[in-house]
């Protein structure tokens, strides 16, 4: 490296600060002075197709890149490091190995304010277990409905459709749709995957209060999870012609010791005539889920043992 010594120290210092999870607020809470156009009810117009552009669905917390979503330990070295032959620490599990770089996990700076998720001790262990058993346990693998807030930052667009007393958020992944009740409705009669959403305006921000979860969704592919006591409060604010600011407070007395928050920009899809397209993945996972259940395996045409 050609850089002088002070430069190198500055880089190392910045890295240490970043790794310690100290993020200077960037624009959050400080309005840019942008005033969104009005929808016909005098409220900000949130209509449009939006998408998150980050690595949050891989892992809400800051993380480096790694070879795969599911890794297994390789045999450890018997000699002290550096004295013997090279060994690797982990390798992709066989089920994902053939994907190569397509199956890798990109790095991310994290979207959690403070970069800590305040798990109760039992839950921190469960999260670790989830991560170690990602392939079997992540509901995304089976095309199950992603829940909230995960649906927001899956790598697919979603569309906000502002009706008169209902706002729909239509997600491309699995055709998931949320109805945000802007009128007065009671509680959810039963637990659901996508929760029960009640919305209100606070100035320029759409605030959505979500309860009624069934506890079966995950928050990302890193094993972060919750129970059916999950309570999410989302905030959607226009900050420019083509950006929304998204904040979500996550609370679950069964799992976390206190509420915590995620934040990220959402970007407008600007292509002319852009529409949501289908990602009807139920069919994509039938072989995985049912191939060996019936009399015959469609993949081979042979009888199952």
């Amino acid at each position, binding site marked *: 490296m050609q850089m002088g010594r002070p430069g190198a120290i500055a880089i190392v210092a910045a890295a240490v600060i970043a790794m310690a999870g100290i993020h200077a607020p960037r624009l959050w809470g400080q309005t840019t002075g942008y005033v969104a156009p009005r929808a016909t009810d005098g409220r900000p117009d949130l209509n449009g197709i939006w998408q998150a552009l980050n690595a949050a669905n891989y892992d809400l917390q800051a993380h480096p890149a790694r070879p795969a979503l599911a890794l297994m330990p390789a045999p450890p070295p018997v000699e002290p490091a550096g004295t013997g032959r090279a060994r690797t620490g982990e390798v992709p599990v066989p089920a994902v190995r053939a994907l190569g770089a397509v199956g890798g996990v990109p790095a991310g700076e994290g979207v959690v304010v403070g970069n800590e998720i305040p798990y109760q001790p039992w839950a921190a262990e469960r999260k670790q277990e989830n991560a170690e058993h990602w392939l079997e346990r992540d509901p995304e693998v089976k095309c199950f409905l992603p829940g909230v807030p995960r649906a927001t930052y899956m790598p697919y667009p979603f569309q906000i459709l502002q009706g008169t007393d209902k706002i729909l958020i239509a997600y491309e992944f699995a055709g998931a749709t949320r109805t945000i009740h802007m009128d007065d409705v009671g509680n959810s009669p039963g637990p659901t*995957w996508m929760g029960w959403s009640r919305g209100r305006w606070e100035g320029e921000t759409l605030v959505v209060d979500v309860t009624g979860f069934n506890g079966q969704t995950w928050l990302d592919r890193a094993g972060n999870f919750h129970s059916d006591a999950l309570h999410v409060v989302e905030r959607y604010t226009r900050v420019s012609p083509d950006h929304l600011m998204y904040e979500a407070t996550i609370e679950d007395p069964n799992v976390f010791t206190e509420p915590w928050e995620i934040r990220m920009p959402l970007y407008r899809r600007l292509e002319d005539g852009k529409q949501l397209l289908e990602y009807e993945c139920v069919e994509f996972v039938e072989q995985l889920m049912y191939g060996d259940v019936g009399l015959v395996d469609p993949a081979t045409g042979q009888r199952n043992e």
Partner: protein
Amino acid sequence: MDHRPVSAVSILAVIVMLPFAPLAAQNAPTAGDPTDARAWQQPLTPWGDPDFQGVWRYEATIPLERPPRYEGRAFLTDEEVAEIARVEEELAANRLAGLDGAAVGRQSLEDSPIRGNEYNAFWQDHGRARQVYRQTSLIVDPADGKLPYTDDAREAAARSTARYGVGPYESYLDPDTGERCLTDGVTAMMWQGPNGGHNRIVQSPGYVTIVHEEYLDRRIIPVDGRPHGGIPQWLGESVGHWEGETLVVETTNFPDKTNYEWASIWTRTSDALHLVERFQRVGPNAMEYTITVEDPKTFTRPWTAAVPITRLADNTQIYEYACHEGNYALKNMLSAGRATAENE
């Protein structure tokens, strides 16, 4: 009661896309007759489109195809209407009293032959009497009220009926698309589904969105008359435009799924399927909906159904239908099929 004359002209009127004459009979709901069009004006959304928002459902007794006993007749007689209405009232009263359709008069399980579709009627949503209209079939064109199947499609329909519940169910390919929690398609979405199939319509500038409760099927319909793209999708690609107060929607770009099992062959998609729907709100709680189905791979000619649809109370909700997530039944069907075969 707002009766309008019945005549052959009414049938032709449907074909030339003019509003047809729904003739609600004596058992229309006691409050807010859905066809009372006298004092009603089409409400508009704040941006000036006709406002169809709310939760809608088909609540009438009209069969899709004309039953043999009504052959040659497009309309019921007054006596027939009255009798059907009377039975509907009785069924509704029975349900309210806790005597269900499946259990009327029966003393034990053995009294009721299994048709393959029963549970206690409390799971159903027919608390009130269904509406009776004079149409003998939803299909108003062709004039015989029958699906104009090609020979291949007719054979496919017969095969599908014969194997329903019987099998074979050897793999996940054997149940129909609905049992697999995929979709039942677009064609019957406005009037089919368990308990009639609830549809919530939400409008926003430039879009009419229909959220169907079963399978959470969703249609986001741009209403600016833009040209269609080219990407095939299960629910096709819909583009709408307004003709006065009528929403006209053209849907194309369906994939060929004729090699799938469908519960109703007439809802299946081929890559030649083309739908034209017309939605017209004719009263505070009434919509006249027509659909013209064209698919040379399934039908010898286009056919049109005219369906009266009812708007439900403002506080009616669509609930989550996480079909795939809860689909124990599919697994059970497959393990049953395997057990049955292994026991033979």
